[in-house]
Structures are given as structure tokens and as C-alpha cells.
């Protein structure tokens, strides 16, 4: 207890010096090649910026898959010369059901459907229901996998869209199963980003049903509204002629002839071939450009378009044309995203918070130091040295982990400082008691260290439990608070159990006092 080997002392000092080195990058303005460049990140509440929590619409992923599965079912049955009635999808249950044309065809139906190609083996099962209907059921595991992929893909597309806006240091992370967190430092008004992310941008090219057949929805035909005139609906064939994912480029430009804003796009070779074939075969008919289930434009095909280039004109202005081009370039989201939580902080409020936090931290530090000096004398000042080291080490660990410092996090640092000296107070009070009982200086110090250690570990362990819980269940700035306190507990154990004790032991070894300054 009262002896520190040279090696132990050297290690304690080395850790403290390492702490100072790790803190240095925070004091410099420019990155330096000589130092490991890791700085504490300032949280959005200090730096200013926006936080968006987005929900991926899982329901639509299921219904999209069911829609394709229903199409596949129709084709498989027709291909085998079989018939069906009442084909329906149920997104809740994840099933496609239909009634066989004749009960005698049931076995043939099952056989044809089980031979359908699947994306993943075992993606669905085909069963006969007691009521004679046939159900194709998606397996929950396959759906889960598909949903997981959809979120991963969404994150990628969100990143591409946000990068295209020129945002600096955006952070895009998955949260839970079906959520995406977008953090945008420096963007205090997220309205534009919200609009960009709130658009699925799923563009497809369809044929419009000929007027001769009437404007009604039916099997394979859906009535979709026009973007510019939501009351006016067009009967659009469900079959996708060309998919927007086959685009290679898109850009906004003013149309030379009309002077209107337009979006020009070009297809890749697959898209260009399909587009050429479709336009070739349907000269004189109307085709529709459908964006997120709304018809942007439905021109009549005058001639085959073979160059692989096209243009969308739909009453755009400069902003909406630029945005649409950006969205088409970045690609469509696999499912709609909606914002369910947003928080944005302007730069001036962030600067105010930094000032308030720094002022409080400074004032609290001075008060605690003065208290320890007044009430505990020499040993109090040793505790103060440890306190300073504690602050440095906390900053060092926060930098090393590149943790995010939030305003509650600064409060956490301050409270850690207040709590940290508890260990020194415990030791000092114990020494004082032992001196009061007539022990020698050496025996009193030994007893103080020994007895106080288990108490120090106990009290820090309980505090640690509470804050780990807070970190697990908390979000945003509160997690920053829990993190700084947790880091603070670790650094406190080091500085009190090793550093301040070392100072006291060294002082004893140097002076061999008979009376302790307690």
C-alpha cells in the first residue's frame, strides 16, 4: 500500500502524459501529421445542425414483393395453361391467394407454382387451403432478410442524395430494424433535405390503356393521378416497360424550344434497348412516365427513340427540376421513408451553449479545487492535481474514441469532477480518524488507503450501473451524458486509486513526517 515501484510510478506518469498528447489535437486548429489526429466531435446541440430520424415503410416492401409474386403467379399459371379466379394479396399475412379454375387443376397448380423461380431458395411456400384456395406464403425469415437489405440499400441511397446536396460530414446510421438516423452538422434548416429524402423517386415507364377500351381500372390496369392535375386520372398498364433504375445520368436544363425547365436523362444499354423496342412497337400510342405512382407526363409516341436519351417536361421550376435530376441520379429508395423525429439547432444557439458549458465547467472546477484546498490542505492539493489529470484523461479518452460531446455531456464532465474527489475525501477522512485513534502517520495512511478502497469501488460500481442503463436506453444528447460519466468513472478510479495515492506516498517517503497534515 505504501510502496510504489519505479515501474508503477513510471506507468502512472506515462498514462498521464499520453493523456496530454491525446488531448493536444483539440487545442490545435489545423491537423498535424506529427500527432495522431483524433478530436472530440462536438454534438449537434453544440455545433448547430439537424438530426432526422426516419422510418422505413416496411409494409410497402412486403406489398411490393407480393405484387411481383402475384404477377409471377399469373404468368406461371397462364404459361402452364391453367386458370385462376380471385387472385388477391394480403400484406398483413404476407400471402397471395387465388381460387383454382377447377378443383381438379389444384395439383397441377401447385406443381407449376412450386417451379416458379425465386430470388432466395425457400422464399415462399405454396399450400392448399381447407377452403380449396391456394395460398403462396412468404417465409418470415426471407421477408426479414429482404427488409434488412432494403434498409441497407436505403442508407446507401440516402447517403448518395445527401452527398449530392454538398452537406459537410453527414452521418447516416441504422437504428434498430427499420430506422435511419441522419445527422447533418451545419444545416440548421433541414426542409430541403427532408423533401429530398421524403421522395421515393421510383420512376417507371408504362403504356397508357387505349381510350377505346374505356378509362376504368381492371386486372393489370390502375388509375393514376397526374402530378399537375391530381383530379385527372389516367388508366395505366401495370406492366413496366422500362425501369428508372436503368438510367445512367440525369440533369436539369432549359428546353430550347419551349423555354421551360426540363430533366434530361440517358439510359444504360439495357434501358436504351427496351426503350427503343417499346417506342418502336407503339408508335401512335400514349406512354406514361410515372414517378411515385403519379403520372408526370403522358405523351403520344411519334417515332421510335433509339438514342437512349429522353426528356421529362412537367411544369418544373429550376429547383424542382434540379431536385428530380438529383433523385434520379441517386436512384430510387426501395421503400418510402418518413421523418418521425427532427431536431435542429441554429449555430448561434450552439455557440451560446458552448460558452455556457465552458463557463460552468471552469467555475465548477475552481470551486471544487478551492474547497479541497481549504478543507483538506496538502492532501487536498494532491487530490486537485489528480482532478486536473482526470479532466485531461477524460478529454483524451473522448478524443481517442472520437466520442461526441454534447451539452449534457459537458454537465456530465462537471459532475464527474464533483464526484471524483469523493475518493480522496474518503481516504483523508479515514486517515484523520485513524490519527485521532492515536495511530502513527504511516499506520494511519495505510489504514486510510486500505479501508477506503472497497468503499470507492462500491460507490463507483453503482454509479456505473445507472449510467450504462442510461446509455443503453437513452438517445442523442443524453447518451453523450451517460458516455462522459462512464468514461469519467474509469478515469476517476485511475486518478484516485493510483495517481493521488502515489503523490501522497511519494511525499511520505520524501519527508517521513511524524504528524500528518489532516
Amino acid at each position, binding site marked *: 500500500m505504501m510502496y510504489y515501484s519505479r515501474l508503477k510510478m513510471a506507468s502512472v506518469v506515462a498514462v498521464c502524459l499520453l493523456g496530454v498528447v491525446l488531448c493536444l489535437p483539440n487545442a490545435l486548429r489545423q491537423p498535424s501529421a506529427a500527432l495522431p489526429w483524433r478530436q472530440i466531435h462536438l454534438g449537434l446541440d453544440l455545433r448547430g445542425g439537424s438530426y432526422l430520424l426516419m422510418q422505413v415503410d416496411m409494409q410497402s416492401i412486403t406489398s411490393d414483393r407480393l405484387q411481383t409474386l402475384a404477377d409471377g403467379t399469373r404468368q406461371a399459371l397462364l404459361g402452364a395453361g391453367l386458370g385462376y379466379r380471385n387472385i388477391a394479396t394480403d400484406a398483413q399475412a404476407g400471402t397471395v391467394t387465388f381460387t383454382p379454375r377447377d378443383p381438379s387443376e389444384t395439383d397441377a397448380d401447385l406443381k407449376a407454382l412450386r417451379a416458379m423461380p425465386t430470388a432466395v431458395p425457400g422464399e415462399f411456400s405454396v399450400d392448399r387451403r381447407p377452403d380449396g384456395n391456394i395460398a403462396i406464403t412468404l417465409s418470415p425469415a426471407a421477408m426479414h432478410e429482404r427488409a434488412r437489405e432494403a434498409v441497407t440499400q436505403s442508407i446507401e441511397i440516402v447517403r448518395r442524395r445527401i452527398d449530392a446536396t454538398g452537406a459537410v460530414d453527414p452521418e447516416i446510421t441504422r437504428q434498430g430494424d427499420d430506422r435511419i438516423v441522419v445527422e447533418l452538422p451545419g444545416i440548421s434548416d433541414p426542409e430541403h433535405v427532408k423533401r429530398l429524402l421524403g421522395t421515393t423517386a421510383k420512376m417507371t415507364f408504362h403504356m397508357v390503356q387505349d381510350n377505346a377500351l374505356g378509362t376504368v381500372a381492371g386486372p393489370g390496369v390502375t388509375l393514376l393521378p397526374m402530378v399537375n392535375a391530381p383530379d385527372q386520372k389516367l388508366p395505366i398498364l401495370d406492366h413496366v416497360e422500362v425501369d428508372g433504375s436503368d438510367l445512367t445520368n440525369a440533369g436539369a436544363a432549359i428546353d430550347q424550344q419551349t423555354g421551360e425547365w426540363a430533366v434530361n436523362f440517358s439510359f444504360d444499354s439495357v434501358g436504351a434497348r427496351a426503350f427503343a423496342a417499346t417506342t418502336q412497337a407503339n408508335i401512335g400510342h400514349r406512354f406514361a412516365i410515372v414517378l411515385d405512382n403519379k403520372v408526370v407526363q403522358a405523351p403520344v409516341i411519334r417515332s421510335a427513340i433509339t438514342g437512349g436519351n429522353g426528356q421529362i417536361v412537367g411544369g418544373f421550376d429550376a429547383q424542382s427540376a434540379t431536385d428530380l435530376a438529383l433523385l434520379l441520379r441517386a436512384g430510387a429508395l426501395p421503400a418510402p421513408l418518413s421523418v418521425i423525429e427532427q431536431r435542429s439547432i441554429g449555430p448561434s444557439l450552439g455557440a451560446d451553449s458552448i460558452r455556457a458549458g465552458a463557463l460552468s465547467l471552469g467555475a465548477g472546477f475552481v470551486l471544487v479545487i478551492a474547497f479541497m484546498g481549504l478543507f483538506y490542505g496538502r492532501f487536498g492539493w494532491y487530490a486537485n492535481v489528480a482532478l486536473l489529470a482526470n479532466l485531461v484523461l477524460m478529454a483524451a479518452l473522448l478524443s481517442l474514441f472520437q466520442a461526441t460531446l454534447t451539452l449534457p455531456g459537458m454537465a456530465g464532465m462537471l459532475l464527474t469532477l464533483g*464526484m471524483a474527489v469523493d475518493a480522496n475525501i474518503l481516504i483523508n477522512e479515514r486517515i484523520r480518524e485513524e490519527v485521532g485513534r492515536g495511530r502513527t502517520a504511516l499506520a494511519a495512511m495505510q489504514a486510510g488507503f486500505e479501508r477506503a478502497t472497497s468503499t470507492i469501488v462500491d460507490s463507483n460500481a453503482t454509479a456505473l450501473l445507472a449510467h450504462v442503463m442510461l446509455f443503453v436506453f437513452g438517445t442523442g444528447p443524453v447518451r453523450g451524458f451517460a458516455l462522459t460519466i462512464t468514461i469519467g468513472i474509469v478515469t476517476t478510479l485511475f486518478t484516485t486509486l493510483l495517481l493521488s495515492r502515489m503523490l501522497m506516498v511519494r511525499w511520505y517517503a520524501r519527508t517521513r513526517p511524524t504528524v500528518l497534515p489532516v
Partner: protein
Amino acid sequence: MFERPLLRFVPNGTRINFMRGRFLGLATSAVLSVASLILFFHPGLTLGLDFRGGIVVEARTQGPADFARIRAALATQHVAAAGLQSFGAPDDVLIRMDTPPADAPDREARTQAMVDSVRHAIATLPGAQVLRADAVGASVSAELFRNGMLALGISLLMILAYIWFRFEWEFAVSAVITLVLDLTKTVGFLVLTHFEFDLVMVAAILTILGYSTNDKVVVYDRVRENLRKYRTMPLAELIDLSINETLSRTLGTSSTVFLAALPLALFGGASLSGFAWVMLFGIVVGTSSSIFIAAPLLLLLGERRLRRDARPAR
């Protein structure tokens, strides 16, 4: 000052008979906690944005905030039922709105869209700027509330388990009962002061719980040590001795934590001062409950059991 301490809290050998006033302490605590529970049900906590959902926009206007003009500007954007309130400085204003009712269509989307409407309204006021704009959907607020309560509940259980593991069950039970009593008083304080109850407050409460437990552990640790040391001393006397022996430390640590939190309450800005005041309140409550509640409870629960080994000696 640099060698010998200049000040002391209590002189060596202080013997205050705390256990004599144990029923007074317990009764006072019970009255305060019951009053807090009544306050909890009526008028109840002011829920913050995290737990209530809806939107809060903080704006700074040119000159003192003119509520009538702000209301007029909001009306042009068809934003109604807005609660306005000064915040910190006279030119700072908070605009609050609740989430649309549960049966409203597009509830989540409309909550988020309200922020943009309020932003557009503020933009029409000359010189005004938005400092902060938050919108929390109903599903998220319900989830945050559940998580906050889970963090509180699990922390209490883990503290119970930890003290149980380290001490005997009498210690663990008295500590957790005391913590729950502390918690109710903090809730009462929140209701009276109208500080908003949100995630940051949960953080404050958890910190108080951690601090308060720490305080009790120190006293209990000494009780356990003295139980071994003085095999025949009656429990009441022994607990009194333990409290007195640790009194200087108890006051010392609560002072340093109090001093650390005080600047936050004074200069921490509007967003942190509520947190800091609750901390300060919690430090006072947690420190006094170690002496006046946790110790008498231990005496009540442990009178027979903890001294059973010692009795035959008499």
C-alpha cells in the same frame, strides 16, 4: 491552506444522536413523499417534448418578443393552438404545438410539417431567426417515454441486486426504499417548479440515484465494519456511531458535488439549468435521506436479525 486544512465540517469525536429523531425523520419523509404523490396525480408533471410529442420552435426576435405579431404571423401559415412563452431572454420565444389527435390521418407527417409552417411564419417577421426547431412524432415520444422508464426501473433493480450482493438483504431493501422515497420527492419538486420532465431529467434523476446510493453505501459500509468491531453494541447506538464517523465525509462529498452543479444552475443556460436545479435538490435530499431515512429503516428492518449473533453474549 497549502499544508494544513483551514476548515472542518465537524470536530473529531462528534456524537449526534440521530436515531433519537428517527421517527420524526421517517414521518417527515412520509409526509413529503405523500404530498409529492398527490402532486404527481394533480396537477401532474409537465411533460417535455421528448415524452409528449409535438413541436417546439425557439426563435429570437428583433427586440422584445411581440406575442400578438407572432400569433398573427402563425395564423397566415394556418398554424393554430400555438402556446407561446418567453424563454431565458425577453427576445427569445418558445412556440409549442401538440401532435394532431390520435385519430387524425397522416398524424406523423403533419407533426413534421408543422415545423416548416412555423419556420415560414417566423421568416415573415423582420429580423427574427429560428434558434432551434424540434418535432417529435407520437410513436417516437411513446417509445422514448418507455425507454426512459425502463432505464429508471432497471437501474433501481440493478442497484438493489448490487447492494444485496455486497451486503445483507436488510441493507439492500432499506436502500431501495429510501431511493424510491427520494425519487417521489424529486417528482414533487419537478411538479412544483414546472421543470419539464424529459430525457435530460431522467438523466438527472439517474445521476441522483447513483449519487444517493453511493452515499448510502458509504454509511452502510461503516455499519458493517462496526458490526464486526463492536460485537455487543446495540444496533441503534452502532448506527448512530457509524453515521457520526462518516458525517464529515458525507458533508464533504455532497459539498463538492453541490459546488460542481451550482455553476450549471446559474450559468448553464435555459436548457441545462432545470437539470442542474434538480441535481442540487437531489443532492440535498439524497444526503439527508442517508442519515434520516436509510439508517432508521436499517434499524427497523435489522433490529432483530443483524444483532442476533451478538445477543447471546449479553
